[in-house]
C-alpha cells in the first residue's frame, strides 16, 4: 500500500505506507560550516550574522546571501570557513578580553623571513549580540595579529571576545557586483507593510453591526 495524501503530488510519489527503518546520515552529509558577515549599509562595519552549511565558499556565499540578505537591507557580505576563525576566550561583561588573555611576545628571530599579511579583527561587545569588524591589522601570525589588535583596538571597551581571520581567507562580495543587493519593488508582497486589513475590517463591521 502506498501513502494517500490530500496533496496529489504527494500521492503520486507512491511512498510506502510502512517504510523501512531509515539509515543514519553519513558524516559530512550536511557538508561543512561557514561563518557569514554582512554590511547593513554603505560604510557600516561588517557584522556577524550566522553560519551556513555548504561545500565550498562560492556556494556558502550564495546560501549566505539567500539566508541573511533576503529580508534585510544589505550592501555587502563576507564569508569564511569556520576553521579559519581564531577565537579568544569569552570574558565577563565587566572585563575586557584584552586584559585577560596573555599574548606571547613574538620571538624576533622566528619572524625573520616571514612576510606580514592582513588579518581582520572582530569584537563582541556584549554576550548574545554579534561580532563586529573593528579593522584590519598587518601581522605575521594569528598571535601577532592579536597583539597588534590589542595595541590598536584594546581601548575599545567593552569587548568580551575577539575573532581573528586572515584577510586572504575571507570570500567577499565585489564592489562592481553591488546590484545583487537591490530588491525590486515587485517583491513588496513579502513585506509586512504590504498588508493593510484595517479598512476591510472596518467596512465589514459597518455593514454587519453586532445585534
Amino acid at each position: 500500500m502506498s501513502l494517500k495524501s490530500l496533496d496529489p503530488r504527494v500521492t503520486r510519489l507512491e511512498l510506502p505506507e510502512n517504510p523501512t527503518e531509515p539509515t543514519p546520515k553519513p558524516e559530512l552529509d550536511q557538508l561543512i560550516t561557514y561563518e557569514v558577515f554582512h554590511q547593513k549599509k554603505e560604510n557600516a562595519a561588517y557584522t556577524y550574522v550566522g553560519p551556513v552549511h555548504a561545500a565550498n565558499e562560492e556556494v556558502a556565499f550564495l546560501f549566505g546571501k539567500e539566508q541573511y540578505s533576503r529580508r534585510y537591507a544589505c550592501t555587502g557580505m563576507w564569508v569564511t570557513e569556520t576553521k579559519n576563525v581564531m577565537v579568544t576566550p569569552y570574558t565577563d561583561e565587566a572585563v575586557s578580553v584584552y586584559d585577560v588573555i596573555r599574548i606571547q611576545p613574538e620571538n624576533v628571530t622566528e619572524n625573520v623571513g616571514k612576510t606580514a599579511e592582513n588579518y581582520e579583527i572582530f569584537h563582541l561587545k556584549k554576550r548574545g549580540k554579534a561580532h563586529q569588524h573593528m579593522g584590519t591589522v598587518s601581522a605575521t601570525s594569528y598571535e601577532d595579529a592579536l597583539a597588534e589588535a590589542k595595541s590598536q583596538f584594546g581601548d575599545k571597551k567593552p569587548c568580551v571576545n575577539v575573532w581573528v581571520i586572515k584577510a586572504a581567507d575571507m570570500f567577499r562580495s565585489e564592489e562592481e557586483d553591488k546590484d545583487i543587493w537591490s530588491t525590486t519593488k515587485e517583491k513588496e508582497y513579502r513585506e509586512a507593510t504590504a498588508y493593510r486589513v484595517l479598512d476591510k475590517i472596518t467596512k465589514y463591521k459597518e455593514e454587519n453591526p453586532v445585534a
Partner: protein
Amino acid sequence: MYGGGNIFEATKFDDLATEDPVKLAEFEARIARGEKIEPNDWMPELYRKQLIRMIEQHAHSEIIGALPEGTWITRAPGFRRKMAQMAKVQDEVGHGQLLYSAAETLGKSREAMLTDLINGKSKYSNVFNYPAVTWADSNIISWLIDAGAIVNQMANAKGSYGPYCRALDRICAEEAFHLKYGHDAVVHMATGSPKQREMIQAALNRWWPPIMTFFGPSDKMSTHTETLVRWKVKMATNDECRQQFLDMYVPKIWELGLTVPDPKLHKNADGVWEYTEPDWVEFKEVINGNGPCNKERLAVRRTAEEKGAWVRRALLAPKKEAKYIKPLA
C-alpha cells in the same frame, strides 16, 4: 514560526549533584546578572541537553511546518498569493537552518538531528500532524499558528543562550510579515462571499482544537521546571503563553463575526480566559505517531533527504579532506 508546546524531558540522573559547585555558581551568577551564555562557556549537562532538545524541536517544527502550507503554493488563488505563500514557506525553512545551527553550537551535528527527525526519535510541533484540507486551512495556519509561535518565540528570545537569542531575533523580525500576511488572508475570506466565509469558519473549526494544544499541557511545577526557569531556558509557562495568545487573538477572530468552536470560551472579570480543556489524550496519541499526517510528513521529509543525497555527495567530492567543525556562535 513554530516553537511552542515544548515538553521537557524528565531527566533520569540527579540533575545537579554531579556538577562542579564552583562552576555551577559562576554559571548561575552570569545568568542572574543578565549576561548570555555563549557556546564555549562551561554549562551544566542538564542545560545543554534541554537546550539541544528545545532548539532541535523548534528547528524540526520549522521545516515540517513548511509542508502543510507548501502544499498550497501551487493551488493558491492568484499569482501574488502564490509568490507570498512561497516567500513565507521559504522563510520557515530558513528559520529551520538558523535553529539547527544554534543547536549545533551545543554539540549535536545537523546529520544527527535530521536522522532523529526522520526516524521519529525527535519531535516537532504536534499541530503539523494535522492536514491543511483547503486553502482556508492554510490561511488559518499562517495567521493563528504563526501568532502562537510568535508568543512563544518572543518569550524565548529573552532566554539565556546567546546563539538561540540571535536566531530568534532574526526569526521574530521575519514573522511580522507572516502574521500580517495570514491575517490579511483570513480577513479576505471572512469579508468575502458566503462560500468564502463558510470555508474560513470550517477551517477555524478544524484548527481550533490543535491550536489550543499548541502551547502544550499545563506545566507541572517541579524542581526540575524551577531550575529551567532560573536558568532562563523556560521563559514562560505553557498556560501563560496560552492565555496571552487568547487575549491577543480571540477578539480579532470575533470582530470578523467568526465563532470559536468552544462554548466555554470567555474572559473572566479578572482577565483570565476560561476554555474547555483540550483533549490531552489525543494530543499524546498524535505525538506518538498516530495523528492523521505523521506518516506523510516524515515520508515526504525522508524522500526529500534521500533524493538530494547524491547532490550533496557530488558537491563534497572534490573536497575529500573536508572536516566538520561546529559553527561558532
